[in-house]
């Protein structure tokens, strides 16, 4: 039996004149998975992660880390319309990928990009139609 999974992405902007909150964008797919991986302290090596998802049928991916780092989606040739395989994360700021070119065959989690910065964790959730 077919099951649909959803991601609901919402944005909020607080301003001196009040808040804007959108009603959310819903992404639907038949396959989703998630992982949480270690980001090494600054100066450490990258961590190679066994993870794969296709570009065909791709719906959305969400990444967030508690320390600044760069996550490389090996195999990707463009992310959100920009020719790159890297997602640069600031600490505790979410990055949402809604457009992907090139199937992802592995993930590399780079070390903390801040000098002398500690180790941390990065979360990824991905949704696609298989």
């Amino acid at each position, binding site marked *: 039996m077919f099951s649909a999974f959803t991601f609901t992405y919402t*944005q909020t902007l607080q301003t001196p004149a009040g808040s804007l909150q959108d009603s959310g964008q819903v992404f639907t797919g038949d396959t989703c998975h998630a992982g949480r991986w270690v980001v090494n302290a600054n100066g450490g090596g990258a961590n190679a992660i066994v993870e794969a998802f296709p570009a065909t049928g791709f719906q959305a991916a*969400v990444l*967030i880390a508690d320390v600044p780092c760069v996550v490389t989606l090996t195999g990707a040739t463009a992310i959100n319309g920009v020719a790159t395989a890297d997602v640069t994360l600031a600490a505790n*700021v*979410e990055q949402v990928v809604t457009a992907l070119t090139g199937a992802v065959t592995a993930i590399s989690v780079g070390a903390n990009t801040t000098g002398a910065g500690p180790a941390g964790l990065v979360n990824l959730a991905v949704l696609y139609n298989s």
Partner: protein
Amino acid sequence: MNFTYTQTCRTPFGTLQDSGKVYTAETASVTDQALTAGAHVAEVIAVACAETGFQCLALMSDVPVVVGAFDAAFTDGPQTLVANQMVFLAGAAALASDITNLTFTCNNAGAGTLKIRLLYDPTP
């Protein structure tokens, strides 16, 4: 002045929510542009800022509308808004030049409101 931009994603595994990114500048521009029912083509909204002082811009409307920059200042071109979904542009890469005016284009059965929130430094 501060704008705080926060994103949340609910997934089957739980909710990922960030702590919010704070943008700071001297000037905030708040515009609620009425969109009357019917067709509008590249109608001008008086909103402007220099590219060098630009911090961020939020656009949200309760009816579908396309928002452009009169001088093609948006790097990605006109922004197509789905009803009640925010488009958020931030950082120098979002603009290709100064914004001298915004424009809106739509053809809706009902009236609506386009909310524009702009944060910038007028003299960076």
